[in-house]
């Protein structure tokens, strides 16, 4: 194993820890917004995970996972945020 | 953007000449094309703006990456060190950029740079609502946005 391999392993542990910590936030909430933030960040960290896998296996195929996720992970966040906002609008409509 | 188009045509021509339909080939062609255009810039009226724009874009990217790095460090420091020293606040930041692209770019930059996060743009597009993490001096934040970020953006896009 080269230094790089060790570095990658260390980074893997960091990233996984980051994801797990984000997951803990996701589990704990307390608000839906917190969970959305956590999920959004997990997708960004997953981009890192994919890239790390590309480094570890020396195979750029995993980079594609990262690219796609970087592109579309955003959409999920947009929809969740929109849900959050529209639910309030809907409640306001009901009150009116 | 007709200068950009010319540059692109030059890049494609390069690719065609060298027969290497790869990204490297295209980039090389683009760079060479830029150089060529710069050499014969008198043939292109108002081309000075084009080259300046290229420079400003580059500056924007570099400055932005630097700011991002700094801001991330500050967040990381706050997170990794015990205790909290943040002083959060919701701020109003008047802005002077006008186009959609500029506003969006600005808001993104604000979000990615130290201590600030754009929450919304006012309806009249004259104000940015910003969440600041270390807002002991709101004026300083407003100043930074106005004098740095807005400037870079304006230089790159106008």
């Amino acid at each position: 194993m080269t230094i790089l391999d060790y570095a990658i392993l260390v980074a893997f542990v960091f990233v996984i820890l980051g994801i797990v910590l984000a997951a803990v936030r996701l589990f704990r909430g307390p608000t839906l917004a917190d969970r959305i933030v956590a999920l959004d960040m997990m997708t960004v960290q997953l981009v890192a995970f994919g890239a790390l896998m590309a480094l570890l296996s020396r195979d750029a195929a995993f980079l594609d996972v990262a690219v796609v996720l970087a592109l579309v992970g955003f959409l999920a966040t947009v929809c969740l945020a929109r849900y959050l906002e529209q639910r309030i609008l809907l409640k306001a409509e009901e009150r009116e | 953007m007709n200068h950009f188009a010319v540059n692109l045509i030059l890049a494609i021509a390069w690719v065609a000449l060298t027969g290497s339909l790869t990204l490297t080939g295209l980039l090389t062609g683009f760079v060479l094309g830029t150089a060529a255009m710069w050499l014969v810039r008198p043939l292109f009226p108002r081309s000075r703006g084009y080259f300046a724009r290229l420079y400003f874009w580059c500056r924007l990217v570099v400055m932005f990456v630097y700011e991002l790095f700094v801001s991330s460090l500050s967040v990381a420091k706050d997170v990794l060190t015990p205790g909290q020293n943040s002083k959060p606040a919701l701020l109003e930041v008047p802005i002077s950029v006008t186009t959609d692209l500029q506003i969006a770019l600005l808001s993104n930059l604000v979000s990615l740079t130290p201590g600030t996060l754009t929450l919304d743009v006012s309806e009249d597009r004259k104000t940015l609502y910003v969440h600041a993490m270390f807002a002991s001096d709101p004026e300083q934040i407003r100043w930074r946005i106005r004098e740095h970020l807005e400037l870079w953006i304006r230089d790159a896009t106008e």
Partner: protein
Amino acid sequence: MQSLILTTATRLLVALLLVFSVYALLRGHNLPGGGFIGGLIGATAFILYAIAASVDEARAALLVDPSNIAVAGLGAAAIGGLASVLAGKPFLTGLWLFLGASEGGKGLPLSTVLIFDTGVYLAVFGGILTLVFALEEET
């Protein structure tokens, strides 16, 4: 959803996503990607468009009813599969034409497999947009 920032970012993203989806489709035979993934990414582009602007605008940009696109994708896949009749080969057999093949490489490939994969792309793309637009118009 009304947001200047989102709308502006979307303009860029939609184009990027569409280009990327076609890229994923075309290179899928050699690297991760293909009709499904391409179609899914393409669909996300228009979903984003519909969310940032409105379904009506997304529909207008699409020109064709998405359910027709989906069904046309099925037809395209079938035609891609049936093309092998011309060569007297079984259903879905890939026919390949290599433009400029040489010792070093196979050249630029054109194939019925690509037609089939394009059918896949269209079916997935159209199918998902049909669903999302219908739901979006509901709420």
